Protein backbone atom coordinates (compact mmCIF):
# COMPACT_ATOMS: atom_id res chain seq x y z
CA UNK A 1 0.00 0.00 0.00
CA UNK A 2 2.67 2.45 1.08
CA UNK A 3 4.82 1.70 -1.95
CA UNK A 4 1.74 2.17 -4.14
CA UNK A 5 1.20 5.65 -2.74
CA UNK A 6 4.86 6.49 -3.22
CA UNK A 7 4.72 5.26 -6.79
CA UNK A 8 1.59 7.28 -7.52
CA UNK A 9 3.25 10.41 -6.16
CA UNK A 10 6.29 9.63 -8.28
CA UNK A 11 4.02 9.79 -11.35
CA UNK A 12 2.19 12.88 -10.12
CA UNK A 13 5.27 15.08 -9.84
CA UNK A 14 6.46 14.77 -13.45
CA UNK A 15 2.88 15.35 -14.56
CA UNK A 16 2.86 18.67 -12.77
CA UNK A 17 6.27 19.58 -14.17
CA UNK A 18 5.03 18.80 -17.67
CA UNK A 19 2.05 21.06 -17.08
CA UNK A 20 4.35 23.91 -16.01
CA UNK A 21 6.64 23.36 -18.98
CA UNK A 22 3.70 23.23 -21.42
CA UNK A 23 2.33 26.50 -20.07
CA UNK A 24 5.74 28.13 -20.42
CA UNK A 25 6.26 26.78 -23.92
CA UNK A 26 2.87 28.22 -24.89
CA UNK A 27 3.91 31.57 -23.48
CA UNK A 28 7.28 31.58 -25.22
CA UNK A 29 5.79 30.44 -28.52
CA UNK A 30 2.91 32.91 -28.46
CA UNK A 31 3.18 35.72 -30.98
CA UNK A 32 3.80 38.95 -29.08
CA UNK A 33 4.67 39.16 -25.42
CA UNK A 34 2.39 40.02 -22.54
CA UNK A 35 3.30 43.67 -22.93
CA UNK A 36 2.65 43.92 -26.64
CA UNK A 37 -0.10 46.46 -27.15
CA UNK A 38 -1.59 48.39 -30.02
CA UNK A 39 0.65 51.35 -29.28
CA UNK A 40 4.09 49.71 -29.18
CA UNK A 41 6.28 50.69 -26.25
CA UNK A 42 9.72 52.13 -26.95
CA UNK A 43 12.21 49.23 -27.13
CA UNK A 44 14.28 50.32 -24.13
CA UNK A 45 11.14 50.67 -21.99
CA UNK A 46 9.95 47.25 -23.07
CA UNK A 47 13.36 45.81 -22.20
CA UNK A 48 13.10 47.39 -18.75
CA UNK A 49 9.67 45.90 -18.11
CA UNK A 50 10.79 42.51 -19.36
CA UNK A 51 13.78 42.70 -17.02
CA UNK A 52 11.52 43.57 -14.08
CA UNK A 53 9.40 40.47 -14.64
CA UNK A 54 12.42 38.32 -15.43
CA UNK A 55 11.34 37.76 -19.02
CA UNK A 56 14.81 38.60 -20.36
CA UNK A 57 16.39 35.55 -18.75
CA UNK A 58 16.93 32.31 -20.67
CA UNK A 59 13.85 30.09 -20.90
CA UNK A 60 15.19 27.27 -18.74
CA UNK A 61 16.13 29.75 -16.02
CA UNK A 62 12.62 31.24 -16.02
CA UNK A 63 11.02 27.83 -15.68
CA UNK A 64 13.26 26.65 -12.85
CA UNK A 65 13.01 29.97 -11.08
CA UNK A 66 9.21 29.81 -11.31
CA UNK A 67 8.98 26.26 -10.02
CA UNK A 68 11.34 27.06 -7.15
CA UNK A 69 9.31 30.11 -6.13
CA UNK A 70 6.03 28.19 -6.22
CA UNK A 71 7.35 25.27 -4.22
CA UNK A 72 9.36 27.26 -1.69
CA UNK A 73 7.27 30.41 -1.16
CA UNK A 74 3.89 29.74 -2.82
CA UNK A 75 4.87 32.66 -5.04
CA UNK A 76 3.38 32.55 -8.54
CA UNK A 77 5.00 35.80 -9.56
CA UNK A 78 3.40 39.19 -10.10
CA UNK A 79 0.32 39.74 -12.16
CA UNK A 80 1.26 41.23 -15.54
CA UNK A 81 -1.81 43.45 -15.51
CA UNK A 82 -2.64 44.41 -11.93
CA UNK A 83 0.50 46.15 -10.84
CA UNK A 84 -0.20 46.03 -7.11
CA UNK A 85 -1.29 42.39 -6.94
CA UNK A 86 0.62 39.15 -7.07
CA UNK A 87 -0.92 36.03 -8.52
CA UNK A 88 -0.83 34.48 -5.06
CA UNK A 89 -2.97 37.39 -3.77
CA UNK A 90 -5.53 36.75 -6.49
CA UNK A 91 -5.60 33.06 -5.68
CA UNK A 92 -6.00 33.74 -1.96
CA UNK A 93 -8.88 36.07 -2.71
CA UNK A 94 -10.81 33.88 -5.11
CA UNK A 95 -10.00 30.40 -3.98
CA UNK A 96 -11.97 30.25 -0.70
CA UNK A 97 -15.12 31.22 -2.60
CA UNK A 98 -14.60 28.53 -5.22
CA UNK A 99 -13.83 26.03 -2.51
CA UNK A 100 -17.04 26.85 -0.60
CA UNK A 101 -19.53 26.36 -3.40
CA UNK A 102 -17.40 23.62 -4.94
CA UNK A 103 -17.53 21.68 -1.68
CA UNK A 104 -21.30 21.99 -1.38
CA UNK A 105 -21.80 21.08 -5.04
CA UNK A 106 -19.72 17.99 -4.53
CA UNK A 107 -21.67 16.99 -1.44
CA UNK A 108 -25.02 17.55 -3.17
CA UNK A 109 -23.95 15.70 -6.32
CA UNK A 110 -22.73 12.67 -4.41
CA UNK A 111 -25.54 12.47 -1.83
CA UNK A 112 -28.43 13.11 -4.21
CA UNK A 113 -26.87 11.13 -7.05
CA UNK A 114 -26.14 8.06 -4.97
CA UNK A 115 -29.55 8.05 -3.26
CA UNK A 116 -31.33 8.51 -6.58
CA UNK A 117 -29.34 5.67 -8.11
CA UNK A 118 -29.88 3.31 -5.19
CA UNK A 119 -33.61 3.98 -5.06
CA UNK A 120 -33.89 3.46 -8.81
CA UNK A 121 -32.02 0.17 -8.59
CA UNK A 122 -34.02 -1.20 -5.66
CA UNK A 123 -37.32 -0.25 -7.29
CA UNK A 124 -36.20 -1.31 -10.76
CA UNK A 125 -38.84 -0.97 -13.50
CA UNK A 126 -41.29 0.94 -11.35
CA UNK A 127 -42.35 4.52 -11.96
CA UNK A 128 -39.73 5.61 -9.39
CA UNK A 129 -37.02 3.99 -11.47
CA UNK A 130 -38.29 5.56 -14.68
CA UNK A 131 -38.51 8.94 -12.99
CA UNK A 132 -34.95 8.68 -11.68
CA UNK A 133 -33.59 7.53 -15.04
CA UNK A 134 -35.56 10.25 -16.82
CA UNK A 135 -34.18 12.93 -14.52
CA UNK A 136 -30.63 11.73 -14.91
CA UNK A 137 -30.80 11.49 -18.71
CA UNK A 138 -32.30 14.97 -18.94
CA UNK A 139 -29.90 16.51 -16.45
CA UNK A 140 -26.87 14.97 -18.06
CA UNK A 141 -27.38 16.75 -21.34
CA UNK A 142 -27.86 20.08 -19.55
CA UNK A 143 -24.49 21.78 -19.32
CA UNK A 144 -24.04 24.21 -16.44
CA UNK A 145 -23.90 27.20 -18.74
CA UNK A 146 -27.39 26.34 -19.97
CA UNK A 147 -28.74 25.50 -16.54
CA UNK A 148 -27.46 28.72 -14.95
CA UNK A 149 -29.52 31.12 -17.12
CA UNK A 150 -32.56 28.86 -16.84
CA UNK A 151 -32.33 28.91 -13.04
CA UNK A 152 -32.04 32.68 -13.01
CA UNK A 153 -34.99 32.94 -15.37
CA UNK A 154 -37.22 30.85 -13.12
CA UNK A 155 -36.10 31.64 -9.58
CA UNK A 156 -35.06 35.25 -9.96
CA UNK A 157 -37.07 36.73 -12.80
CA UNK A 158 -40.32 34.78 -12.60
CA UNK A 159 -40.60 33.75 -8.96
CA UNK A 160 -38.30 36.31 -7.39
CA UNK A 161 -37.19 33.92 -4.66
CA UNK A 162 -33.43 34.04 -4.99
CA UNK A 163 -30.86 36.73 -5.76
CA UNK A 164 -29.62 36.47 -9.34
CA UNK A 165 -25.97 36.73 -8.39
CA UNK A 166 -23.38 37.98 -5.97
CA UNK A 167 -21.68 36.28 -3.08
CA UNK A 168 -22.28 38.24 0.12
CA UNK A 169 -19.93 36.16 2.21
CA UNK A 170 -21.51 32.92 1.07
CA UNK A 171 -24.95 33.24 2.70
CA UNK A 172 -27.16 30.38 1.65
CA UNK A 173 -29.58 32.27 -0.68
CA UNK A 174 -26.52 33.24 -2.72
CA UNK A 175 -25.21 29.72 -2.60
CA UNK A 176 -28.25 27.78 -3.83
CA UNK A 177 -28.22 28.53 -7.54
CA UNK A 178 -24.46 28.17 -8.05
CA UNK A 179 -24.56 24.83 -6.27
CA UNK A 180 -27.51 23.58 -8.34
CA UNK A 181 -25.96 24.78 -11.59
CA UNK A 182 -22.65 23.16 -10.78
CA UNK A 183 -23.83 19.87 -9.34
CA UNK A 184 -26.78 18.83 -11.50
CA UNK A 185 -25.06 17.13 -14.42
CA UNK A 186 -22.62 15.30 -12.12
CA UNK A 187 -25.49 14.31 -9.87
CA UNK A 188 -27.11 12.78 -12.94
CA UNK A 189 -24.02 10.86 -13.98
CA UNK A 190 -23.47 9.59 -10.44
CA UNK A 191 -27.10 8.45 -10.26
CA UNK A 192 -26.76 6.56 -13.53
CA UNK A 193 -23.51 4.89 -12.51
CA UNK A 194 -24.86 4.01 -9.05
CA UNK A 195 -28.01 2.51 -10.53
CA UNK A 196 -26.27 0.18 -12.97
CA UNK A 197 -23.62 -0.73 -10.43
CA UNK A 198 -26.20 -1.49 -7.75
CA UNK A 199 -28.21 -3.62 -10.19
CA UNK A 200 -25.12 -5.64 -10.97
CA UNK A 201 -24.29 -6.09 -7.28
CA UNK A 202 -27.85 -7.10 -6.39
CA UNK A 203 -27.64 -9.93 -8.89
CA UNK A 204 -24.41 -11.24 -7.37
CA UNK A 205 -24.23 -14.50 -5.48
CA UNK A 206 -23.37 -13.10 -2.09
CA UNK A 207 -26.52 -10.99 -2.07
CA UNK A 208 -28.59 -14.07 -2.85
CA UNK A 209 -26.90 -15.79 0.08
CA UNK A 210 -27.72 -12.86 2.32
CA UNK A 211 -31.33 -12.99 1.19
CA UNK A 212 -31.42 -16.75 1.77
CA UNK A 213 -30.19 -16.23 5.30
CA UNK A 214 -33.27 -14.09 5.79
CA UNK A 215 -31.52 -10.75 6.35
CA UNK A 216 -33.83 -7.76 6.05
CA UNK A 217 -33.46 -5.87 2.75
CA UNK A 218 -32.37 -2.68 4.47
CA UNK A 219 -29.46 -4.43 6.11
CA UNK A 220 -28.47 -6.20 2.89
CA UNK A 221 -28.33 -2.91 1.04
CA UNK A 222 -26.39 -1.02 3.69
CA UNK A 223 -24.04 -3.68 4.96
CA UNK A 224 -23.39 -5.76 1.89
CA UNK A 225 -24.36 -4.06 -1.35
CA UNK A 226 -23.25 -0.47 -0.70
CA UNK A 227 -19.50 -0.96 -0.64
CA UNK A 228 -19.06 -2.77 -3.97
CA UNK A 229 -21.64 -0.44 -5.50
CA UNK A 230 -19.54 2.59 -4.63
CA UNK A 231 -16.44 1.42 -6.51
CA UNK A 232 -17.40 2.66 -10.00
CA UNK A 233 -18.84 5.79 -8.41
CA UNK A 234 -15.55 6.44 -6.72
CA UNK A 235 -13.63 6.21 -9.96
CA UNK A 236 -16.02 8.74 -11.48
CA UNK A 237 -15.32 11.27 -8.72
CA UNK A 238 -11.99 12.24 -10.30
CA UNK A 239 -13.51 13.41 -13.61
CA UNK A 240 -16.41 14.95 -11.69
CA UNK A 241 -14.00 17.01 -9.62
CA UNK A 242 -12.23 18.26 -12.74
CA UNK A 243 -15.56 19.09 -14.34
CA UNK A 244 -16.68 21.06 -11.31
CA UNK A 245 -13.47 23.08 -11.20
CA UNK A 246 -13.97 23.88 -14.88
CA UNK A 247 -17.64 24.60 -14.29
CA UNK A 248 -16.74 27.05 -11.56
CA UNK A 249 -15.65 29.35 -14.38
CA UNK A 250 -19.25 29.49 -15.61
CA UNK A 251 -20.65 29.93 -12.11
CA UNK A 252 -18.24 32.76 -11.39
CA UNK A 253 -18.95 34.52 -14.64
CA UNK A 254 -22.69 34.02 -14.55
CA UNK A 255 -23.46 34.54 -10.87
CA UNK A 256 -20.61 37.00 -10.18
CA UNK A 257 -19.58 34.95 -7.17
CA UNK A 258 -16.00 36.23 -7.35
CA UNK A 259 -14.27 32.86 -7.33
CA UNK A 260 -11.13 31.84 -9.09
CA UNK A 261 -12.90 31.31 -12.41
CA UNK A 262 -13.77 34.98 -12.70
CA UNK A 263 -10.11 35.92 -12.35
CA UNK A 264 -9.18 33.30 -14.89
CA UNK A 265 -11.58 34.61 -17.52
CA UNK A 266 -10.67 38.22 -16.80
CA UNK A 267 -6.99 37.44 -17.12
CA UNK A 268 -7.77 35.59 -20.36
CA UNK A 269 -9.34 38.73 -21.78
CA UNK A 270 -6.47 40.89 -20.53
CA UNK A 271 -3.75 38.55 -21.76
CA UNK A 272 -2.50 38.40 -18.20
CA UNK A 273 -0.29 35.36 -18.76
CA UNK A 274 1.11 35.05 -15.28
CA UNK A 275 -2.31 34.94 -13.60
CA UNK A 276 -3.60 32.43 -16.14
CA UNK A 277 -0.59 30.22 -15.69
CA UNK A 278 -0.77 30.42 -11.91
CA UNK A 279 -4.41 29.39 -11.86
CA UNK A 280 -3.89 26.66 -14.46
CA UNK A 281 -1.03 25.19 -12.49
CA UNK A 282 -2.93 25.39 -9.21
CA UNK A 283 -5.94 23.68 -10.74
CA UNK A 284 -3.66 21.06 -12.28
CA UNK A 285 -2.04 20.39 -8.92
CA UNK A 286 -5.46 20.05 -7.27
CA UNK A 287 -6.66 17.71 -10.01
CA UNK A 288 -3.62 15.50 -9.67
CA UNK A 289 -3.88 15.50 -5.88
CA UNK A 290 -7.55 14.61 -6.03
CA UNK A 291 -7.08 11.74 -8.46
CA UNK A 292 -4.29 10.50 -6.20
CA UNK A 293 -6.66 10.48 -3.22
CA UNK A 294 -9.34 8.71 -5.25
CA UNK A 295 -6.89 6.07 -6.46
CA UNK A 296 -5.62 5.40 -2.97
CA UNK A 297 -9.17 5.17 -1.62
CA UNK A 298 -10.02 2.81 -4.43
CA UNK A 299 -7.08 0.56 -3.70
CA UNK A 300 -8.05 0.61 -0.04
CA UNK A 301 -11.71 -0.30 -0.59
CA UNK A 302 -11.28 -2.87 -3.33
CA UNK A 303 -9.26 -5.83 -2.08
CA UNK A 304 -9.03 -7.20 -5.60
CA UNK A 305 -6.98 -4.32 -6.92
CA UNK A 306 -3.29 -4.97 -7.37
CA UNK A 307 -0.97 -2.18 -6.46
Amino acid at each position, binding site marked *: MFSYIVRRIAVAIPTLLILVVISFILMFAAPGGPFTSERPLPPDLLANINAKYGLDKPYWYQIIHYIWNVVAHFDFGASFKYKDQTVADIIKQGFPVTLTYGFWSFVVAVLVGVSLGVVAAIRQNTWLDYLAVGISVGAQA*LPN*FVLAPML*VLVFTLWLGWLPGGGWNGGQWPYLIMPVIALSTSYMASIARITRSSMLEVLNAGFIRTAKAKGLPMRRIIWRHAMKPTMLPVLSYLGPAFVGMITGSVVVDVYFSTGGIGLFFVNSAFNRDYSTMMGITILVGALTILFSLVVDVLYAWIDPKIRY
Partner: protein
Amino acid sequence: MVFPDKATADGLIEAAALSEAKGRSLWSDAVGRFRQNKAAVFALYVLIAITLFAFLGQFLAAYSNEEIDWSRLGNIAQTGAPSFSNGHYFGLDDLGRDLYARTVQGTRISILVGLVGSLIAVVVGTLYGAIAGYAGHRTDNVMMRIVDILMSIPFMFVLILLLVMFGRSIGMLFVGIGLISWLDMARIARGQTLTIKNKEFVEAAVATGVRPFTIILRHIVPNLLGIVVVYATLLIPGLIITESFISFLGLGVQEPSTSLGALISKGASQMQYGVIWQLLFPLFFFLATLFAFFFVGDGLRDALDPKDR
Protein backbone atom coordinates in the same frame (compact mmCIF):
# COMPACT_ATOMS: atom_id res chain seq x y z
CA MET B 1 1.00 -11.38 -50.30
CA VAL B 2 2.62 -14.36 -52.01
CA PHE B 3 1.03 -17.72 -51.35
CA PRO B 4 3.16 -20.83 -51.29
CA ASP B 5 0.84 -22.85 -53.50
CA LYS B 6 -2.56 -22.71 -55.11
CA ALA B 7 -4.35 -24.93 -52.60
CA THR B 8 -3.35 -22.72 -49.67
CA ALA B 9 -4.27 -19.66 -51.65
CA ASP B 10 -7.69 -21.06 -52.42
CA GLY B 11 -8.12 -22.03 -48.81
CA LEU B 12 -7.17 -18.55 -47.66
CA ILE B 13 -9.44 -16.88 -50.18
CA GLU B 14 -12.27 -19.12 -49.07
CA ALA B 15 -11.53 -18.33 -45.46
CA ALA B 16 -11.43 -14.64 -46.32
CA ALA B 17 -14.78 -14.93 -48.09
CA LEU B 18 -16.19 -16.76 -45.11
CA SER B 19 -14.97 -14.20 -42.63
CA GLU B 20 -16.24 -11.45 -44.91
CA ALA B 21 -19.69 -13.04 -44.98
CA LYS B 22 -19.58 -13.32 -41.21
CA GLY B 23 -18.36 -9.73 -40.94
CA ARG B 24 -21.23 -8.47 -43.03
CA SER B 25 -23.77 -10.34 -40.95
CA LEU B 26 -22.25 -8.85 -37.83
CA TRP B 27 -22.89 -5.37 -39.17
CA SER B 28 -26.34 -6.20 -40.46
CA ASP B 29 -27.07 -7.71 -37.04
CA ALA B 30 -26.06 -4.42 -35.56
CA VAL B 31 -28.30 -2.51 -37.97
CA GLY B 32 -31.19 -4.75 -36.97
CA ARG B 33 -30.57 -4.18 -33.28
CA PHE B 34 -30.28 -0.45 -33.85
CA ARG B 35 -33.59 -0.38 -35.72
CA GLN B 36 -35.34 -2.01 -32.78
CA ASN B 37 -34.28 0.82 -30.51
CA LYS B 38 -37.06 3.32 -31.19
CA ALA B 39 -35.48 6.18 -29.27
CA ALA B 40 -32.24 5.81 -31.20
CA VAL B 41 -33.97 5.67 -34.58
CA PHE B 42 -36.03 8.73 -33.75
CA ALA B 43 -32.89 10.52 -32.54
CA LEU B 44 -31.20 9.62 -35.82
CA TYR B 45 -34.03 11.26 -37.78
CA VAL B 46 -33.80 14.33 -35.54
CA LEU B 47 -30.08 14.43 -36.16
CA ILE B 48 -30.53 14.23 -39.92
CA ALA B 49 -33.10 17.03 -39.74
CA ILE B 50 -30.79 19.23 -37.67
CA THR B 51 -27.89 18.56 -40.01
CA LEU B 52 -30.02 19.50 -43.01
CA PHE B 53 -31.12 22.62 -41.14
CA ALA B 54 -27.52 23.54 -40.35
CA PHE B 55 -26.14 23.05 -43.85
CA LEU B 56 -29.10 23.98 -46.06
CA GLY B 57 -31.04 26.30 -43.74
CA GLN B 58 -29.32 29.43 -45.02
CA PHE B 59 -31.08 29.06 -48.38
CA LEU B 60 -34.40 29.65 -46.65
CA ALA B 61 -33.17 32.67 -44.74
CA ALA B 62 -34.40 36.05 -45.87
CA TYR B 63 -31.36 37.80 -44.38
CA SER B 64 -27.70 37.00 -43.85
CA ASN B 65 -26.24 36.41 -40.42
CA GLU B 66 -24.58 39.84 -40.23
CA GLU B 67 -27.17 42.12 -41.79
CA ILE B 68 -28.57 44.60 -39.31
CA ASP B 69 -32.25 45.44 -39.55
CA TRP B 70 -31.94 49.16 -38.81
CA SER B 71 -35.70 49.73 -38.89
CA ARG B 72 -36.22 47.54 -35.85
CA LEU B 73 -32.97 48.20 -33.99
CA GLY B 74 -33.55 49.94 -30.68
CA ASN B 75 -37.01 48.51 -30.28
CA ILE B 76 -36.32 44.82 -30.53
CA ALA B 77 -38.46 43.73 -27.59
CA GLN B 78 -41.57 45.09 -29.35
CA THR B 79 -40.83 44.70 -33.05
CA GLY B 80 -38.18 42.00 -33.19
CA ALA B 81 -40.26 39.03 -32.09
CA PRO B 82 -40.31 35.94 -34.30
CA SER B 83 -42.65 36.42 -37.24
CA PHE B 84 -43.11 34.79 -40.60
CA SER B 85 -44.46 37.90 -42.25
CA ASN B 86 -41.26 39.93 -42.03
CA GLY B 87 -38.90 37.03 -42.71
CA HIS B 88 -37.31 36.94 -39.26
CA TYR B 89 -38.56 33.44 -38.44
CA PHE B 90 -36.72 33.34 -35.12
CA GLY B 91 -36.84 37.06 -34.44
CA LEU B 92 -33.89 39.40 -34.07
CA ASP B 93 -30.86 39.30 -31.80
CA ASP B 94 -29.80 42.20 -29.58
CA LEU B 95 -28.02 43.95 -32.46
CA GLY B 96 -30.92 43.64 -34.88
CA ARG B 97 -29.54 40.71 -36.82
CA ASP B 98 -31.69 37.84 -38.06
CA LEU B 99 -31.66 35.13 -35.41
CA TYR B 100 -32.71 32.43 -37.87
CA ALA B 101 -29.62 32.94 -40.02
CA ARG B 102 -27.46 33.12 -36.92
CA THR B 103 -28.93 29.95 -35.44
CA VAL B 104 -28.36 28.09 -38.70
CA GLN B 105 -24.77 29.26 -38.77
CA GLY B 106 -24.22 28.54 -35.07
CA THR B 107 -25.61 25.03 -35.36
CA ARG B 108 -23.33 24.44 -38.33
CA ILE B 109 -20.24 25.48 -36.34
CA SER B 110 -21.25 23.34 -33.38
CA ILE B 111 -21.83 20.25 -35.51
CA LEU B 112 -18.58 20.85 -37.40
CA VAL B 113 -16.62 21.13 -34.16
CA GLY B 114 -18.12 17.87 -32.94
CA LEU B 115 -17.46 16.03 -36.20
CA VAL B 116 -13.93 17.31 -36.77
CA GLY B 117 -12.95 16.70 -33.15
CA SER B 118 -14.22 13.16 -33.17
CA LEU B 119 -12.65 12.53 -36.57
CA ILE B 120 -9.27 13.49 -35.09
CA ALA B 121 -10.04 11.24 -32.13
CA VAL B 122 -10.86 8.36 -34.44
CA VAL B 123 -7.75 8.68 -36.61
CA VAL B 124 -5.15 9.59 -33.98
CA GLY B 125 -6.65 7.75 -31.03
CA THR B 126 -7.30 4.49 -32.85
CA LEU B 127 -3.87 4.36 -34.42
CA TYR B 128 -2.11 5.37 -31.22
CA GLY B 129 -4.03 2.86 -29.12
CA ALA B 130 -3.65 0.07 -31.66
CA ILE B 131 0.09 0.65 -31.96
CA ALA B 132 0.55 0.78 -28.20
CA GLY B 133 -1.55 -2.33 -27.65
CA TYR B 134 0.08 -4.27 -30.46
CA ALA B 135 3.63 -3.32 -29.58
CA GLY B 136 3.13 -4.16 -25.92
CA HIS B 137 5.91 -4.23 -23.35
CA ARG B 138 7.85 -1.05 -22.79
CA THR B 139 6.50 0.83 -25.81
CA ASP B 140 2.97 0.27 -24.57
CA ASN B 141 3.94 1.33 -21.08
CA VAL B 142 5.55 4.58 -22.21
CA MET B 143 2.79 5.43 -24.68
CA MET B 144 0.03 4.89 -22.16
CA ARG B 145 1.84 6.79 -19.39
CA ILE B 146 1.98 9.73 -21.80
CA VAL B 147 -1.79 9.46 -22.23
CA ASP B 148 -2.24 9.27 -18.45
CA ILE B 149 -0.18 12.40 -17.96
CA LEU B 150 -2.00 14.34 -20.68
CA MET B 151 -5.31 13.29 -19.20
CA SER B 152 -4.59 14.69 -15.78
CA ILE B 153 -3.89 18.13 -17.22
CA PRO B 154 -6.85 20.50 -16.68
CA PHE B 155 -7.37 20.76 -20.38
CA MET B 156 -10.14 23.39 -20.39
CA PHE B 157 -7.75 25.82 -18.75
CA VAL B 158 -4.95 24.91 -21.12
CA LEU B 159 -7.34 25.28 -24.06
CA ILE B 160 -8.25 28.79 -22.95
CA LEU B 161 -4.56 29.55 -22.42
CA LEU B 162 -3.93 28.33 -25.97
CA LEU B 163 -6.76 30.44 -27.40
CA VAL B 164 -5.61 33.57 -25.60
CA MET B 165 -1.95 33.24 -26.50
CA PHE B 166 -2.38 32.32 -30.15
CA GLY B 167 -5.41 34.39 -30.91
CA ARG B 168 -9.01 33.30 -30.83
CA SER B 169 -10.05 31.61 -34.00
CA ILE B 170 -12.06 28.64 -35.01
CA GLY B 171 -8.90 27.01 -36.37
CA MET B 172 -7.16 27.28 -33.02
CA LEU B 173 -10.25 25.87 -31.37
CA PHE B 174 -10.10 22.85 -33.65
CA VAL B 175 -6.42 22.36 -32.85
CA GLY B 176 -7.04 22.63 -29.13
CA ILE B 177 -9.98 20.24 -29.12
CA GLY B 178 -8.09 17.86 -31.40
CA LEU B 179 -5.19 17.80 -28.95
CA ILE B 180 -7.23 16.17 -26.21
CA SER B 181 -10.14 14.43 -27.88
CA TRP B 182 -8.09 11.38 -28.86
CA LEU B 183 -6.95 10.42 -25.35
CA ASP B 184 -9.98 8.38 -24.31
CA MET B 185 -10.15 6.80 -27.72
CA ALA B 186 -6.53 5.71 -27.46
CA ARG B 187 -7.26 3.94 -24.17
CA ILE B 188 -10.31 2.18 -25.55
CA ALA B 189 -8.54 1.14 -28.75
CA ARG B 190 -5.58 -0.17 -26.79
CA GLY B 191 -7.74 -2.27 -24.49
CA GLN B 192 -9.54 -3.79 -27.45
CA THR B 193 -6.28 -4.39 -29.33
CA LEU B 194 -4.91 -6.39 -26.41
CA THR B 195 -7.67 -8.96 -26.83
CA ILE B 196 -7.58 -8.95 -30.64
CA LYS B 197 -3.85 -9.43 -31.00
CA ASN B 198 -4.00 -12.89 -29.46
CA LYS B 199 -6.56 -14.14 -31.98
CA GLU B 200 -5.60 -16.75 -34.56
CA PHE B 201 -5.93 -14.51 -37.60
CA VAL B 202 -3.31 -12.17 -36.23
CA GLU B 203 -1.08 -15.12 -35.49
CA ALA B 204 -1.63 -16.29 -39.07
CA ALA B 205 -0.69 -12.85 -40.39
CA VAL B 206 2.47 -12.86 -38.28
CA ALA B 207 3.31 -16.37 -39.46
CA THR B 208 2.93 -15.41 -43.12
CA GLY B 209 5.37 -12.58 -42.58
CA VAL B 210 3.10 -9.55 -42.78
CA ARG B 211 4.83 -6.44 -41.49
CA PRO B 212 3.62 -5.23 -38.06
CA PHE B 213 2.28 -1.93 -39.33
CA THR B 214 0.28 -3.69 -42.05
CA ILE B 215 -1.12 -6.06 -39.44
CA ILE B 216 -2.25 -3.11 -37.37
CA LEU B 217 -3.87 -1.36 -40.33
CA ARG B 218 -5.37 -4.34 -42.11
CA HIS B 219 -6.20 -6.79 -39.35
CA ILE B 220 -6.54 -4.94 -36.08
CA VAL B 221 -8.03 -1.55 -36.91
CA PRO B 222 -11.00 -2.98 -38.88
CA ASN B 223 -11.88 -5.07 -35.84
CA LEU B 224 -11.78 -1.99 -33.63
CA LEU B 225 -14.23 -0.10 -35.80
CA GLY B 226 -17.38 -1.13 -33.94
CA ILE B 227 -16.29 0.20 -30.60
CA VAL B 228 -14.59 3.19 -32.21
CA VAL B 229 -17.79 4.24 -33.96
CA VAL B 230 -19.71 4.01 -30.69
CA TYR B 231 -17.29 6.15 -28.74
CA ALA B 232 -16.83 8.61 -31.57
CA THR B 233 -20.58 9.22 -31.54
CA LEU B 234 -20.66 9.58 -27.78
CA LEU B 235 -17.69 11.95 -27.96
CA ILE B 236 -19.43 14.41 -30.27
CA PRO B 237 -21.88 15.88 -27.70
CA GLY B 238 -19.01 16.31 -25.25
CA LEU B 239 -17.04 18.26 -27.84
CA ILE B 240 -20.06 20.38 -28.73
CA ILE B 241 -20.46 21.21 -25.05
CA THR B 242 -16.77 22.10 -24.83
CA GLU B 243 -16.95 24.45 -27.79
CA SER B 244 -20.15 26.04 -26.53
CA PHE B 245 -18.58 26.47 -23.12
CA ILE B 246 -15.64 28.33 -24.62
CA SER B 247 -17.95 30.42 -26.80
CA PHE B 248 -20.21 31.09 -23.82
CA LEU B 249 -17.25 32.71 -22.11
CA GLY B 250 -16.69 34.77 -25.25
CA LEU B 251 -13.37 33.11 -26.02
CA GLY B 252 -14.41 30.99 -28.98
CA VAL B 253 -15.78 31.87 -32.38
CA GLN B 254 -15.42 35.54 -33.26
CA GLU B 255 -18.10 37.90 -34.59
CA PRO B 256 -19.81 38.05 -37.01
CA SER B 257 -19.59 34.28 -36.93
CA THR B 258 -21.31 32.65 -34.03
CA SER B 259 -21.96 29.32 -32.41
CA LEU B 260 -24.75 27.94 -30.29
CA GLY B 261 -22.79 28.60 -27.10
CA ALA B 262 -22.28 32.25 -28.01
CA LEU B 263 -25.95 32.63 -28.94
CA ILE B 264 -27.08 31.06 -25.66
CA SER B 265 -24.75 33.35 -23.76
CA LYS B 266 -26.16 36.40 -25.56
CA GLY B 267 -29.72 35.24 -25.09
CA ALA B 268 -29.13 34.56 -21.41
CA SER B 269 -27.72 38.03 -20.83
CA GLN B 270 -30.72 39.64 -22.58
CA MET B 271 -33.54 37.60 -21.13
CA GLN B 272 -34.70 40.15 -18.56
CA TYR B 273 -35.57 42.57 -21.40
CA GLY B 274 -38.49 40.52 -22.69
CA VAL B 275 -36.63 38.98 -25.62
CA ILE B 276 -36.77 35.40 -24.38
CA TRP B 277 -36.77 34.02 -27.95
CA GLN B 278 -33.10 34.99 -28.18
CA LEU B 279 -32.41 32.32 -25.58
CA LEU B 280 -35.03 29.74 -26.50
CA PHE B 281 -34.26 29.15 -30.19
CA PRO B 282 -30.52 28.51 -29.83
CA LEU B 283 -31.19 26.56 -26.64
CA PHE B 284 -33.70 24.35 -28.41
CA PHE B 285 -31.27 23.49 -31.21
CA PHE B 286 -28.43 22.99 -28.75
CA LEU B 287 -30.36 20.57 -26.56
CA ALA B 288 -31.95 18.78 -29.52
CA THR B 289 -28.50 18.19 -31.04
CA LEU B 290 -27.06 16.95 -27.75
CA PHE B 291 -29.96 14.63 -27.00
CA ALA B 292 -29.95 13.27 -30.52
CA PHE B 293 -26.24 12.45 -30.36
CA PHE B 294 -26.61 10.90 -26.91
CA PHE B 295 -29.44 8.65 -27.97
CA VAL B 296 -27.86 7.65 -31.28
CA GLY B 297 -24.62 6.87 -29.43
CA ASP B 298 -26.50 4.84 -26.85
CA GLY B 299 -28.30 2.93 -29.58
CA LEU B 300 -25.04 2.28 -31.39
CA ARG B 301 -23.48 1.04 -28.17
CA ASP B 302 -26.30 -1.40 -27.61
CA ALA B 303 -26.03 -2.51 -31.23
CA LEU B 304 -22.25 -2.75 -31.58
CA ASP B 305 -20.56 -3.08 -28.21
CA PRO B 306 -20.44 -6.77 -27.32
CA LYS B 307 -19.66 -5.97 -23.68
CA ASP B 308 -23.07 -4.58 -22.84
CA ARG B 309 -25.10 -7.30 -24.49
